[in-house]
């Protein structure tokens, strides 16, 4: 638009989000990688004499209730946090999106059966799922990630289905059909790109939820085994010190927030990349 209320874009924004998101995430990944070879302190051993030191001094970000260096914990915790978050989102996307698209394209009984199944999974609490999985395969970060992924899959399915329904009402789908293209083609070439915005948002939200849920689960003994540090667990452990040592919640909270922010920026960036009309909007 040319009206002066909308000053012309200062710079081409396409990619701005993408780049900053990618940079943030790369930093997180880098931190996780560095922690494999170096952390300021060993994040595992407990030192009762150095508990709950405030930030500053020898321990830049202070120490936690076990007397472990918070900075080192954050660095090492990035690994499991990324692992669980990313694999849960992958599992959920790979399960949920195809189901949702298929249901939305086929409609009829396929839709009914799939969606009722999805409803049942949605209703089945993730906690129970994790317990069951832990019972069958043993509790670990992997089972927790898979269980969280399965737990999140229904929302991917429902969101993809609703997007698919809308896309399928468009005439270009009819055009594809008349071009003798089957459902697979329509699903991958028309539906997927047109619902990608929502799926990307869904993935970035699901990541945040998975990271927080992993904390709750591992605290109950269903997730990562202590003493392996994770941001979620740090948050959980810091909870009861909120009043007297708020930094114990603050730092892991910030770490999660920054990662989620990076992911969302990346998501928005990808979204804009995939959307040729993004520059046309006002």
């Amino acid at each position: 638009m040319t009206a002066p209320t909308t000053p012309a874009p200062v710079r081409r924004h396409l990619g701005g989000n993408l780049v900053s998101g990618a940079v943030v995430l790369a930093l997180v990944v880098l931190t996780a990688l560095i922690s494999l070879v170096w952390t300021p302190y060993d994040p595992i051993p407990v030192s009762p004499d150095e508990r709950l030191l405030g930030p500053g001094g020898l321990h830049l970000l202070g120490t936690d209730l076990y007397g472990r260096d918070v900075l080192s914990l954050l660095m090492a915790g990035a690994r499991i946090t990324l692992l669980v978050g990313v694999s849960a989102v992958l599992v959920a996307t790979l399960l949920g999106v195809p189901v949702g698209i298929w249901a939305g394209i086929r409609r009829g009984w396929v839709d009914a059966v799939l969606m009722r199944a999805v409803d049942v999974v949605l209703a089945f609490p993730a906690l129970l799922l994790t317990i069951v999985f832990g019972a069958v395969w043993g509790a670990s970060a992997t089972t927790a990630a898979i269980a969280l992924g399965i737990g999140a899959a229904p929302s991917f399915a429902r969101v993809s289905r609703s997007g698919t329904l809308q896309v399928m009402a468009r005439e270009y789908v009819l055009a594809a059909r008349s071009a003798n293209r089957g459902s697979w083609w329509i699903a991958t070439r028309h539906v997927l790109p047109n619902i990608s915005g929502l799926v990307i948002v869904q993935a970035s939200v699901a990541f945040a939820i998975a990271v927080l849920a992993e904390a709750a689960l591992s605290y109950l003994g269903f997730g990562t085994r202590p003493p392996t540090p994770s941001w979620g667990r740090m948050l959980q452990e810091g909870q009861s010190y909120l009043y007297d040592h708020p930094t114990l919640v603050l730092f892991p909270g910030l770490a999660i927030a920054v990662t989620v922010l990076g992911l969302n920026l990346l998501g928005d960036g990808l979204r804009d990349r995939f959307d040729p009309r993004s520059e046309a909007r006002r």
Partner: protein
Amino acid sequence: AAGPAASGSAPGEVTVALSRAPASLDYTRNAGVAIPQALLYNVYEPLVKIDSEGAVVPLLASSWTVDDARTSYTFTLREGVEFADGRPLTADDVVASFDALPDWTNAVAGQLSGIVATEAVSPQVVRVELDEPDNAFLTALAGPAGTVFAAGGTDDLATRTLGTGPYTVESYDSGVSMRMVAHEGYWGGPPPMERITLDYYTDPTAQTNALMTGGADAALGVDAPQLLPQFENSPDFTVTTGSTDAEMVLSMNNAAAPFDDVRLRRAVRHAVDSDGVREVAAEGYGIPLATMVPPTDPWYEDRPDPYPYDPERARELLAEAGDPHPAISFKVPNLPQYVRVGQTVQSYLEAAGFRVDMRILEFPAVWLGEVLTGHDYQLAVIIHSEPRDIVQFSDPDYYFGYDDPAADAVLAAARSGPPGEYAAGMRDYARMISEGAAADFLYLTQWINVVSAEVSGAPENSTSESIDLTRLARG
């Protein structure tokens, strides 16, 4: 930053914030410490009770005699006792209650399994026969198993209480809140409060929040000591710490490798710094222990730990035993406090050379099944909160799997010997258990109360299975 907040309770009422909620009102059927904590002494009364100093004192029985063989106890019941529905207490009620013990599904009834007969000598006198002399009998009688129920009034105990105590349960919103009202005809005179409300909080922060907003007048048995600093310097609240029967025990499976080797058990005790564990897990609250005897027990002895923190010695012991880096599995219940203990212990053990595979197990369902029932463990941690529970080291079927015939003999002699020698015998027994490194006794947990300045009479120690609210008053 505790601000003064007006109490939300009406005059003559007091609201208490507790943590663990009873599953029902019937401790003849349901296990769990929460039911007797709420009901014993407050609603239900046994013949005797354990006072706040740990001593057995008369309750429904005004006096009793023991025969020379020490297997026959004759109790004289207090005059003028009535149940909450107005029916007077007689010896028949006692007989019916004790005769019903085998029907309990709650295993605590087993504490009185020594009773072979109960008979009503007169309406006010009842005689109890034991199979063998037992110096622990009166203590057991003061527990929930000794409760005197109204004969014929036990049909719906799960939802309706009928006891002789100073309060009766008016309503119980399961897991949420229990309201107790004064029992008008209580034999000890009118109770101090017209109504006591017990509110249950799963989240310790919520429990203390209730205090600060006037939603509760007292929090008893707070088990998140990290929340205390905000109250400690406040004029509106008093924080008290008292003794309990609850020992934090690092259990070792004495019956199986590797802890059938006493050197490894000693290595564990040398490797773990109990003070460090106490610091991390209980913010330094808690009382150091050398064996499984709390200071309120008559046979408590202030002795130094035979295996003090000495990682160097632990390493030597491991080397002696042949494997400087033994792999052990460690099963920890999935409750915050245990996880903290577990992580700290793990850290100490690894520093001494152990390789620890720590697993957090769901409590109670999975942990009990694997460790307590299945004996499928090497190292575990748990609080043993029953009074005088050290004797379990002589139970060959118990999960400790400890086998020391000499100690067993000492215990048997003490329990059935003359009462005058009971305490001394038990003292010896406790020492033997500790020296045998049957387990690592990390510390005694403390009973922590935060009460508003208006409230008095809160139980400062937890010496029995009851949270004794009979003297609790506000204003």
